[in-house]
């Protein structure tokens, strides 16, 4: 039997998903917060023009950030620390010498914003040619949520969306569809809705028959742990607006579909450019049409 990897051994935070044969004509750097496998970026990376380099910063491989998802009592990892770590990784790899496109998915967009802020503050803002946020919620007071303020019915919708994406099958959750705002508020806790999620998931072939509620509860706990960890990191982070253009890519099934630019206009002195794509929060990196739009954006062809 070959030896197992040491679980305590550090895993690389910076990985190259795509390297051109010669010098890179353009470089893209993506910040990935976990929840989905980092390989989800492969479709976008694969559609970029020849000569484009694609580097991935996987926050899931930052040990203290991973630990904070597994244990709610673990110390909060500040957004500023994560951004500093990412910039150190890029600098060590010589990846900030030429202007690059910086993109972050979900919470990764918040870290990407802070990376750009730090480069701006250091007088090196020109290193980031474009800053692209993929359904990231802005770290502004109107959009920050502690765990207690997250509506249980909304969390169930998000979890169902996540489960469907992970299983690669659509899942319609009748539990909260068609409820009025008042009825949604009366869903006491997300855990109370898990039996209905299980029933729908098994009926629609998303989970195999015989799947037990205890198993789904474990999966939900892991999902909620990551979400809560991201919210705890975001809570104390109070960035100032940047004098740079932001592009927000918002899928049809956004985390907050009715919330405009997700608060980003509060963090830029320039108008936020919003690009709508098909798919949802968890499928936007693999939906063929969304991937086409994203690869065009990141390659720079659609950036004014």
């Amino acid at each position, binding site marked *: 039997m070959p030896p197992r990897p040491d679980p305590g051994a550090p895993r690389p935070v910076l990985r190259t998903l795509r390297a051109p044969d010669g010098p890179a004509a353009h470089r893209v750097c993506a910040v990935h917060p976990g929840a989905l496998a980092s390989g989800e970026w492969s479709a976008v990376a694969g559609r970029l023009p020849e000569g484009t380099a694609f580097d991935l910063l996987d926050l899931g491989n930052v040990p203290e950030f991973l630990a904070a998802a597994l244990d709610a009592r673990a110390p909060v990892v500040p957004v500023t620390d994560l951004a500093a770590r990412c910039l150190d990784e890029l600098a060590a790899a010589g990846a900030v010498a030429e202007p690059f496109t910086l993109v972050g998915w979900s919470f990764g967009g918040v870290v990407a914003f802070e990376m750009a802020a730090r480069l701006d503050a250091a007088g090196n803002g020109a290193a980031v040619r474009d800053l692209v946020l993929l359904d990231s919620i802005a770290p502004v007071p109107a959009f920050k949520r502690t765990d207690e303020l997250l509506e249980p019915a909304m969390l169930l919708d998000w979890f169902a969306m996540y489960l469907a994406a992970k299983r690669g099958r659509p899942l319609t959750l009748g539990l909260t569809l068609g409820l009025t705002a008042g009825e949604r508020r009366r869903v006491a806790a997300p855990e109370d809705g898990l039996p209905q999620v299980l029933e729908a998931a098994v009926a629609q072939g998303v*989970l195999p028959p015989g799947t037990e509620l205890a*198993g789904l509860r474990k999966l939900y706990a892991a999902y909620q742990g990551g979400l809560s960890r991201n919210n705890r990191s975001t809570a104390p982070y109070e960035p100032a607006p940047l004098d740079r253009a932001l592009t927000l890519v918002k899928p049809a099934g956004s985390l907050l579909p009715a919330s405009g630019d997700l608060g980003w206009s509060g963090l830029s002195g320039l108008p936020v450019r919003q690009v709508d794509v098909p798919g949802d929060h968890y499928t936007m990196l693999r939906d063929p049409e969304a991937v086409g739009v994203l690869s065009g954006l990141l390659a720079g062809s659609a950036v004014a």
Partner: protein
Amino acid sequence: MQRVTAEEAQSWLVEKLAIRLEVEPSEIDVDRYFDEFDLDSTEALILAGELEKWLGFELEATALWYHPTIAALSEHIAEENARHAAAA
């Protein structure tokens, strides 16, 4: 808390994995690494939740790292079960 031997834990894991993978239990190699089975992270977590319900206690998050096969995990489960029973 029920007492669980390594053999019983192994039988439980083999049966559950066989159902998930739609194969006969005899086709499950107990010395194969968990991550070599065709099991995604969602299924692994669901299986872990079902296992913990059956055992009546939670396994530590690193259990699968240090005990990466059905045979090794079953031995660990039996030891943890005895420890929990002794502490009860």
